[in-house]
């Protein structure tokens, strides 16, 4: 009889211990799952935010490649205007160029301006050569190809020749 009671007690203790272990395991799993869930939720919210940013970037720069291609047409107009001897044709070309520039401007394209003798800025400019000039050494001596910014991003830097000084 006494032994039975003892056995029962032992079993009860064992069962309690088992329950305790199970509870602990469950609590651990619960924490793990809660953490996973919070993480997933946070990941999703962050993803949504970033996706939103990405979409707005896409809208802003979605037409970057077509803009880059159209810029070469502007180059040809500029060259045509500077090299043509026919004043009427020149004027016509000028008007078409301005018309096109206006349209591109509406879509966020801006021409990069440059100052002869100004200091070289690799953020906006690309140096392609060095020449003897009246300007201080290392400064911009000549613009050889126009540069453009699309919604704040340089899609083509302005190509310049830098001054070597006056050679004297």
């Amino acid at each position, binding site marked *: 009889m006494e032994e039975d009671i003892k056995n029962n007690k032992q079993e009860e203790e064992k069962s309690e211990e088992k329950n305790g272990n199970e509870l602990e395991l469950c609590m651990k799993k619960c924490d793990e799952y809660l953490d996973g869930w919070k993480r997933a939720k946070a990941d999703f919210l962050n993803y949504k935010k970033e996706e939103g940013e990405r979409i707005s970037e896409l809208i802003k720069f979605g037409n970057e490649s077509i803009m880059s291609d159209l810029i070469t047409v502007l180059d040809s107009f500029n060259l045509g205007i500077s090299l043509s001897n026919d004043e009427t044709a020149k004027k016509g070309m000028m008007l078409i160029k301005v018309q096109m520039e206006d349209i591109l401007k509406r879509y966020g394209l801006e021409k990069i301006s440059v100052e002869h003798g100004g200091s*070289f800025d690799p953020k906006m400019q690309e140096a392609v*050569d060095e020449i003897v000039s009246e300007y201080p050494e290392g400064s911009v001596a000549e613009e050889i190809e126009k540069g453009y910014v699309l919604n704040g991003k340089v899609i083509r830097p302005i190509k310049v020749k830098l001054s070597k000084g006056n050679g004297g």
Partner: protein
Amino acid sequence: MAKILGIDLGTTNSAMAIMEGGEPRVLENQEGNRTTPSIVAFSKSGERLAGLLAKRQAVVNPKNTIFSVKRLIGRKFSDPEVQRDKQWLPYDLKESSQGGVEIKMGEKWYTAEEISAMILQKLKLDAEAKLGEKIDEAVITVPAYFDDSQRQATKTAGEIAGFKVRRIINEPTAAALAYGLNRKKNEQIVVYDFGGGTFDISILEVGDDTVEVKATGGDTHLGGDDFDKRIIEYLVQEYKKQDGIDISKDSLALQRLREAAERAKHELSTALETEINLPYITSDASGPKHFVIKLTRAKLEDLVSDFITRSIDLVREAVTNLSPKGAGMKLEDIDEVVLVGGQTRMPAIQEAVKKLFGKEAHKGINPDEVVAIGAGIQAGVLQGDVKDILLLDVTPLTLSIETLGGVATPMIQKNTTVPTSKSQVFSTAADSQTSVEIHIGQGERPMMADNKTLGRFILDGIPPSPRGIPQIEVTFDIDANGILNVSAKDKASGKTQSVRIEASTSLSKDEVEKLKKEAEMYAADDQKKKEMIEVKNQAESAVYLAEKSLRDAGDKIPADIKTGVEQKIARLKEVKEGTDVQVIQTATQELSQELQKVGQFMYNNTNQPSQEGGEKNPEGGEEQHDTGSDSNSTSS
């Protein structure tokens, strides 16, 4: 957890990627580009520049613009490679006190590690700016042929840049990782990497969780830039033939030619012919000159064929030569081929590789980014993202509910990640309808009869009211185990009925494929059938509305208007049982027009504005459908 950055530190360009939401993502640099030139410079104004900005002043500052430092890192000054490169690199090199290489930039001498660190530091800062968080750890890739000293030096460069370098991995291994080839067992993989300035071949063997480099080969001085040079040379020659003018000395003309050549090369990867059109390329005494020339893919391939042949010969050598010069294998032993580097977009290269191995190469991932992506994946494994990834299932087929006319109205579209839940409000199709049958189906066909029925149940006890008035909210909910719960609730009475379907995602692959194929096959027919039903439904609604309007108006409208509407109703009732969509549509339209006369008359003849006009859309914009397979209607 802080992110680990995966970096492809290239000879010409570098790129970086991170793991985000279980997917690798290439990060853009501050200038908004996905690759960064591996160049640093000490500008004439005394500024230290890295990346694109350093490249933009390289021409006028060659002595202080350091590029291709990867060719020098971790090598002894006396190394024949260094001695060879020293001949053509425009900047100054000297032997360091430990026998390594030192590079002069500005007034100071730097080790190759320090220069590489400047590139890595730019990538670090740009990544931090992009992600808005600090990044302290990195995985950096190196060519498979790098020895211990080159690997150690690369690691040191990372540490100088402020990274804890978690791992240095081989570039070809990273590329294989990006294509998931590391999961294959006992496979032999060739990675053909044609970069801007170097051409690398690696033969890898994937074992159990290991990737072993069996052999490497290539040419460290052959790259995509050589292709560009060839095209430019050709164009200069052609122009000389055409107009007798040498434009190679005109920096503006050359600049435009360079851009046009690069564009043409890219275009010829997809088109068979392109036109180089450079108006006003130059001018002489006779006036302005233009340059227009057609360049075909065949001509381009002809111009660079020796480069391609050479690369293929090198691959053959690396695979078949006996160790240590090669892997000592047969070409047919190779199981997978991976293409890396922008130049591998060229169809002739893809063709040549395919011909050599007799199999298609892996090329789905952007070849400029594949190594960075692999590095990002490795970083993800280290930060625990990849290992513990929670695999979420998707619904393989669309789950729909049957609506008026037997149409399958989608509730959850195929490929939606589960768990998910969608609700939509439906209504009744007939007056005083007190019950609706919710018929749940699975499949891509627009008619429910063609899809697989998953279950059906009846929601009854709906208070009798005219058609379209009751609001029955149907909710589809799939849990993570693919168990679908569908419930329907009558908003007015609050009565709810639901069903649980266990096997909504557990279709066999064959079954899914079969259903998808069927959907494609019958797409056109199904569309017509659906259109027909929609037109008939519209006709029925129009008849219902017209009859109701006449009833409501009673004797308030003149007999001629009433007769006109009645005639149109009769006409529509007659044609709507037919099969001519056009005729039914016309009759429906005619009835609607006739019906407007009723409304107009009522407005003109009442002092107070009538409330009846608002009936058409009683739900305030909420989308409503009539549930079709109800117990009162005759629809199938």
